[in-house]
């Protein structure tokens, strides 16, 4: 019998990442508690946990971002730890502080480290002082246009407007010429206000054609800080990653060691504990610049898990419980190649417009080295309430070439109907000669994919043939139609009236 690290863990998140964390809890024999909003009352993460607490209406501010409600849910269910997942409260120092006051372990770094690293400007200055290379730009925020204009002139166009309070592409704008500066700052402020409740933005030089390379960090409470190698996340649309891989095609052992050491230095400078990610931009001449630290588990953490064999969420929980990093974890090697494709509810054929609807068919691929982290199931509604990420498809193979081939066939076997996805778009990215050659820069999609268009007419015959066949198979499609029209089947407890198993479902 394993030693129980915590009595019970509340997972303050939803969808795929909530389920991912609950999986680790199951492995460790720790009961987990889900929280859910009105929109998520039939969601998979609610049913996956040992207990579930309803925390309010669909808007995040009234549920998943509501600190009091989450803390109360944890107290009500006697949880002694909270895992925040990513997004929502994951990088909110006030929440981590509140957990500390209530003697609930926050599975993540200290509020002090989150606060320092959450301030993108201050962390830039601190890391520059520690000897880590940074991008030229503003060293303080400003509200007046004159300061921005001056800083832009000094750094030289193009420049990048960034939100001081966050990441994920929100509140971020590239500005090519002085005449666009003001409207870009206004738009970035609006988006930053909406996403992070903080409209502070700053400006730095825009590195043209960089790669985005980040290092996974683990740090325990005994002074041990290690990195678990890099992830290359250069394939982005709207400054948001859609395809990530490890190892990076561009790093040799010397560079990897140097960047890894700087990543560890960044973590140590911030007195960082638990799991985190140090992001770098890597330019064409082979220079790298510290970008920021994401003080949370990343969306793309599975690729690191595939090549190192480490379960990062289990390590987060062990670290939070006060355990030192094991010798095994401190002596890792990279094994093979892993790729992740993010499955967003968005139209890859139409500028990645978010897509909503009900899932009328859902079937996952399977096979050696194929992993699906998903919050989806047939019948569920994709609404505009939350971030459109539905699932992550991850593959692992001995070589990059084989990993690409495996990803393409896994995407083809991953069937989702009812909302649009970017599956075909991502396949075309991975078939592009530049991607195959490892020429992956953050402008990849803009440069290589903007003229891409599907020739719909070439699918005319096969499309009509499939419809013809489906029209003769009423049993299967009729059932789905019913499901699609009426939405999700009611959960069993709603059909058979009120009941309880060990008090596990609470409203």
């Amino acid at each position, binding site marked *: 019998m394993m030693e129980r690290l915590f009595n019970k863990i509340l997972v303050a998140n939803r969808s795929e990442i909530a389920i991912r964390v609950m999986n680790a809890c199951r492995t460790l024999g720790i009961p987990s508690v889900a929280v859910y909003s009105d929109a998520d009352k039939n969601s998979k993460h609610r049913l996956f946990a040992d207990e579930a607490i309803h925390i309010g209406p669909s808007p995040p501010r009234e549920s998943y971002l509501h600190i009091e409600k989450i803390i109360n849910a944890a107290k009500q269910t006697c949880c002694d730890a909270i895992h925040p997942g990513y997004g929502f409260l994951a990088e909110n120092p006030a929440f981590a502080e509140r957990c500390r006051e209530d003697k609930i372990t926050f599975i993540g770094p200290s509020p002090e480290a989150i606060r320092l690293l959450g301030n993108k400007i201050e962390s830039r200055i601190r890391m520059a002082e520690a000897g880590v290379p940074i991008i030229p730009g503003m060293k303080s925020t400003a509200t007046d246009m004159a300061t921005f204009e001056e800083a832009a002139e000094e750094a030289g166009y193009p420049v990048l407007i960034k939100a001081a309070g966050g990441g994920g592409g929100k509140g971020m704008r590239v500005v090519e010429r002085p005449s666009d500066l003001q409207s870009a700052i206004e738009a970035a402020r609006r988006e930053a206000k909406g996403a992070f409740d903080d409209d502070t933005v700053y400006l730095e030089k825009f590195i043209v054609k960089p790669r985005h390379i980040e290092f996974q960090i683990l740090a325990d409470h005994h002074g041990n800080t290690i990195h678990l190698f890099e992830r290359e996340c250069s394939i982005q649309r709207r400054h948001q990653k859609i395809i990530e891989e490890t190892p990076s095609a561009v790093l040799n052992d010397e560079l990897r060691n140097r960047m890894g050491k700087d990543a560890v230095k960044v973590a140590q400078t911030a007195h960082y504990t638990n799991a985190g990610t140090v992001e770098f931009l890597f330019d064409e001449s082979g220079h790298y610049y510290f970008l920021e630290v994401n003080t949370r588990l990343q969306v793309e953490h599975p690729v690191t898990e595939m090549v190192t064999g480490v379960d990062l969420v289990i390590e987060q929980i062990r670290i939070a419980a006060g355990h030192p990093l094991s010798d095994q974890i401190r002596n890792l090697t990279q094994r093979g190649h892993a790729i992740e494709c993010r499955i967003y509810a968005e139209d890859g054929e139409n500028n990645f417009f*978010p897509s909503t609807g009900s899932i009328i068919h859902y079937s996952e691929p399977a096979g050696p080295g194929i992993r699906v982290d998903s919050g989806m199931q047939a019948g569920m509604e994709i609404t505009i309430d939350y971030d*459109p990420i539905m699932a992550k498809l991850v593959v692992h193979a001995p070589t990059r070439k084989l990993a690409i081939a495996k990803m393409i066939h896994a995407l083809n076997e991953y069937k989702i109907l009812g909302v649009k996805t970017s599956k075909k778009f991502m396949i075309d990215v991975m078939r592009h000669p530049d991607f195959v050659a490892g020429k992956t820069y953050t402008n990849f999609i803009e440069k290589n994919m903007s003229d891409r268009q599907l020739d719909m007419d070439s699918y005319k015959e096969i*499309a*009509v043939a499939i419809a013809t066949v489906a029209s*003769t198979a009423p049993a*299967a499609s009729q059932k*789905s139609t019913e499901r699609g029209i009426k939405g999700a089947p009611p959960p069993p407890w709603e059909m058979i009236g009120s009941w309880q198993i060990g008090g596990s479902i609470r409203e």
Partner: protein
Amino acid sequence: MSSCEFLFNGDVVASVLEKDGDNLKVKVGEKEFEFRSLGNDLFSTTVNGARTDVAVVKHKGVYYIDIDSVLLEVRETSEDTFAGGAGDLVGEKDKIFAPMPGKIVKIMVKVGDEVDEKQPLVIVEAMKMENQVNSRARGRVKAVNFAPGDQVDTESPIIELELPE
């Protein structure tokens, strides 16, 4: 053997279905396809010499299809099948719709403005992202029906254009 008609990408397309044991054969024009049902809305077929699985579900008179990650929609000819947002309508380039329900953040043009094809007209916020809606034609702005802050669905035109003759 039975004949059917469907709508695909604006064309009426006829097909002939033949059953041969567990195999289903469909002829569309000169092309012939063979299918085996795998259950659960999945079929196995061969396209360009390679075996592949397709998923298909009929929903409100539309067949939604995933073949090799390409998403296709085939409509029945017999029903009034128009269901999607009005933005799907071919030929209505003079009306600008939101691609999905959301909140209008910014309207970049006013009545009387000349606009080009692909010119940004409106920013709609949905799923916490700002989405830019571009003009699909060259023309002059005839009407602006919403203001920043308004909620908008996919059925009501945000902007109406007067197209050149």
